[in-house]
C-alpha cells in the first residue's frame, strides 16, 4: 500500500510540476482573492480585524476545490482510466498517494497564502507561525476528504459544480476547527483542543478513504 501511495504521489506531483497549473493559475488566484479580501476590509481594519483566519480559510477552500478537480482530472479521460485500472493498483494506496500529493500542493499554496495574510491582512507573524501546525493538519484533512469526494464526483455530469456541494458539509467542521485554532494562536484561547479535533478528523478521513476508495472507484 505504501509503495503504491508513494508511486502515485510522485506521479501526481510530477504532473503538477510539469503542467505548472498550481504555480501560474491556482496560487495567483488565491493571492488575488486574499488581496481582494484585504481591500474589502479596508486599510484601517485589516490589521485589527478578527476576520483574518476566516478569510484565510475561505480562500484556501476555493483553492482546494480547484486542486481537487485537478487531481481527479489526471485520470479523467476514459482511456487513461481504463489503462490505469488494468495495472490493478491497490485502491487504498492510490487514495493515500493522491491525498498525499494533494496535501503537498495545498501545503505549498497554504504557506504562500499565509505569507499573503501576514502582508495583506496584517496578520501577526508570530501568531501565524504558532497556527502553522494546525493549518498543515487542516489542509491534510481537507486533502483526504477532497480525494474521497473527488472520486465520488469524478466522471459524472457537472462534476466541477457537484464537488463543492458535496464537499462543503465535509469541510465545514475542518474549516471551523482550523479557523478557531488560528484565531486562538493569534488572540489567545484554547489551542490544543482544536488540534486534537483536527487530528482525529484527519485520521477518520484517512481511515474511511482507505476502506472505501476502491468501492468508489468501481462505482
Amino acid at each position, binding site marked *: 500500500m505504501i509503495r*503504491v501511495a508513494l*508511486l502515485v504521489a510522485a*506521479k501526481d506531483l*510530477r*504532473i503538477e510540476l*510539469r*503542467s505548472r497549473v498550481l504555480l501560474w493559475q491556482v496560487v495567483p488566484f488565491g493571492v488575488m482573492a486574499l488581496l481582494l479580501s484585504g481591500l474589502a476590509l479596508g486599510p484601517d481594519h485589516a490589521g485589527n480585524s478578527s476576520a483574518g483566519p476566516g478569510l484565510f480559510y475561505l480562500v484556501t477552500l476555493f483553492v482546494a476545490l480547484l486542486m481537487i478537480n485537478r487531481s481527479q482530472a*489526471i485520470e479523467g*479521460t*476514459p*482511456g*487513461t482510466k*481504463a*489503462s490505469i*485500472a*488494468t*495495472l*490493478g*493498483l491497490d485502491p487504498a494506496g492510490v487514495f493515500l498517494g493522491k491525498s498525499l500529493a494533494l496535501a503537498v500542493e495545498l501545503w505549498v499554496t497554504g504557506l504562500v497564502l499565509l505569507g499573503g495574510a501576514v502582508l495583506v491582512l496584517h496578520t501577526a507573524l508570530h501568531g501565524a507561525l504558532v497556527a502553522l501546525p494546525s493549518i498543515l493538519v487542516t489542509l491534510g484533512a481537507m486533502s483526504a476528504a477532497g480525494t474521497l469526494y473527488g472520486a465520488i464526483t469524478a466522471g459524472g455530469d457537472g462534476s466541477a459544480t457537484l464537488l463543492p456541494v458535496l464537499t462543503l458539509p465535509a469541510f465545514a467542521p475542518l474549516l471551523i476547527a482550523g479557523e478557531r485554532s488560528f484565531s486562538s494562536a493569534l488572540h489567545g484561547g484554547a489551542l490544543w483542543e482544536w488540534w486534537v479535533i483536527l487530528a482525529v478528523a484527519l485520521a477518520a478521513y484517512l481511515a474511511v478513504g482507505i476502506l472505501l476508495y476502491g468501492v468508489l472507484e468501481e462505482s
Partner: protein
Amino acid sequence: MAGDLDVVRLRDAVVLSNGFPLLSGVDLDIPSGSLNVVTGANGAGKTSLLRLLAGLVALSTGTGTVAGIDLIEGDQRQLRRRVGWLGHEGSFYNDLSVRENLVFAARALERPTSDIESVVERVGLAHRVDTTTKKLSAGQRRRLGLAWLLLRRPELWLLDEPYASLDDSGRTFFDDLLGDVVAGGATVVVSAHDPLRSSALRPRTILLAGGRVVRDSA
C-alpha cells in the same frame, strides 16, 4: 467444445448499461496463443466485449472466465493485472514523457525498468523517449501504447481499434508486432473495422451485431 487452454470462455454473456444491453448473449471461447479480430458496425458491441474481458465492466447475466478468473466471483483486480488494454481514446498521462509513463507502469507492476530502452527501440520511439506525451502524434501515441503493453507482457492483449490514426507503415508495423506477440504465446483480441493486412497472420474473425456473435471464422 471449449478446451482447457481457452483464455476466454463466455456463455450467454450479457452486459447491461442503464438497462440497455451492450452485449446480449455472447458465447465465445478464445484459445491461448491465438490472434482474434472482432469486427462489426458501430455500436455492435466490440468495445463492450473487450471491456468485459478486461474486467472493466461487470457481467450482468451469464457466465464467463478470463485467464481462469471468474468474471462474477473472481478477483477483478487480479484479472486486470493479467490483461493489457489499449483503448482508442489515448491511454496515458499527457504531462509525462514517454519514459516517465513507462517507468510508472513498470514500477506499478513491479517490473524492471531496465527493459524500457529495448521496448521503445522496438516500437520506434527511441528518438522521442523524453518527449512529453501530449506532444506525440496520434500514431506515436499508439506506439507508446504498444510499448506499455510490451513492457507489461500480459497474457491477454485487448486492443480497441488500434489501427485508427495509423498510416500504412504504422499498420504494417502493428501487424508484424502482433504476429511476434502471438508467436511468443500471448493471446490477442483486436477490435477493428477492417481486416488485418498481413495475410500471414490469418486471424480468427468474429463478427458482432446487436451485441451478439453472428459469424465466427473459427
